[in-house]
């Protein structure tokens, strides 16, 4: 399906008669994105796309047009339609999401530039203009073949990771955990008698650990998984084996079950405490989107269930 993309963004698909009726909705400029206010300092925004729900070839072609050449090449560098679609939706979600916040009056996803920090973590590269002070917008993206998600905050470092609930590992879970997780985590998994539950706990731990490393933004080899423990008994916390560098109470976690099919782990740099060292819950707004087609506020519905951490959904 995507192989026509190579042609279509060279000669626009709406010029081609066979695509005329399909592309009627998109033959003119795309409808504007629904603008959204930047999250407040205490809020986290979660946006996600379900790739299986995005089937329109002309729409995907329009998404491709939002990307600069380098990103298009990157998308086309993936082998096969499914992987290309996933990569395309990831770039589209990041660009359209950030564009909605209309920073400095801009609403065009095309105009955004990205760079990587010294550790390779992607960041927005705002235009430097007189008098323009870019917002401290933080974002992080994660995807599986069945879900693409983007988390946005103001000021808080954020890491997110998504995974299918039913994800199976080829290796035995305990053998895997002994090799890659900490002793405490192995003990926690070992204590779960039901293998199905054990599998789910493993996936939850994995996503939480990934989210933490992604929030740190220093690359995986700087924080190998066996150097920190995620404790998820009452609330979720991280404990590093060698504490000096990272004050581990700097980080807050949320674990969500999305659409009954996916785990989403969010790790945030703690902004404020509620006095006496008490942590305030994460204020979360979750929206499902098909950029330019529909947006749906899903926080507080069955689609987003908090299963770990302290979260208030708005």
């Amino acid at each position: 399906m995507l192989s026509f993309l190579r042609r279509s963004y060279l000669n626009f698909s709406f010029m081609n008669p066979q695509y005329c009726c399909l592309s009627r909705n998109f033959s003119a400029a795309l409808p504007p994105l629904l603008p959204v206010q930047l999250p407040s300092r205490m809020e986290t925004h979660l946006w996600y796309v379900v790739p299986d729900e995005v089937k329109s070839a002309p729409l995907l072609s329009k998404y491709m047009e939002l990307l600069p050449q380098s990103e298009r090449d990157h998308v086309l560098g993936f082998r096969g339609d499914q992987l290309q679609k996933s990569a395309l939706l990831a770039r589209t979600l990041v660009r359209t999401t950030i564009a909605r916040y209309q920073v400095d009056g801009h609403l065009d996803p095309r105009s955004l530039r990205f760079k990587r920090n010294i550790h390779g973590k992607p960041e927005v590269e705002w235009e430097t203009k007189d008098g323009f002070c870019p917002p401290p917008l933080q974002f992080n993206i994660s995807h599986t073949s069945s879900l693409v998600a983007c988390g946005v905050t103001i000021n808080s470092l954020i890491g997110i990771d998504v995974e299918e609930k039913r994800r199976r590992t080829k290796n035995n879970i305990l053998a895997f955990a002994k090799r890659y997780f900490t002793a405490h985590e192995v003990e926690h998994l070992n204590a779960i008698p039901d293998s199905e539950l054990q599998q789910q706990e493993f996936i939850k731990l994995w996503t939480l650990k990934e989210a933490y490393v992604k929030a740190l933004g220093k690359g995986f080899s700087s924080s190998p998984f066996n150097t920190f423990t995620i404790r998820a008994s009452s609330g979720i916390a991280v404990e590093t084996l060698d504490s000096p560098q990272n004050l581990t109470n700097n980080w807050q976690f949320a674990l969500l079950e999305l659409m009954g099919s996916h785990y989403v782990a969010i790790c945030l740099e703690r902004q404020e405490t509620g006095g006496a060292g008490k942590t305030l819950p994460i204020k979360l707004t979750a929206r499902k989107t098909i950029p330019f087609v529909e947006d749906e506020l899903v926080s507080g519905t069955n689609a987003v269930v908090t299963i770990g951490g302290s979260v208030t959904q708005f």
Partner: protein
Amino acid sequence: MAGARGILLKHLRVKVQAFPQNPKPNNGLFGLSFNAILRQFSEAVRGSFLDKSEVTDRVVNCVKNLQKVEASKQVTTNAHFQSDLGLDSLDTVEIVMALEEEFGFEIPDNEADKINSISLAVDFIASHPQAK
């Protein structure tokens, strides 16, 4: 100039002898040819290395066995884990674990981080003397 050099080199070519499996003890090292001495030292120092094409076959098999994916994904010798095979970070860690089992040595995390294609895995393993 090049021609003369070529002729000179031909005259200077050293005869290569097969490395003796069981050098006679009373001859010691001095009974061996120069090349044989060098190889004996370097093998003692570096251990032995696996043949690259054998490593490639074994690595490809490891990845194929782990593949959660449709038969349409061909695991070619230059396949990249993310862009060709659609593998994510959990898959990659599983592959590293499978390679450790297959080749019998531990791959440190900072090295494992860089292994995201079949050829990188092969190069790494083939250059490791502990690989079995």
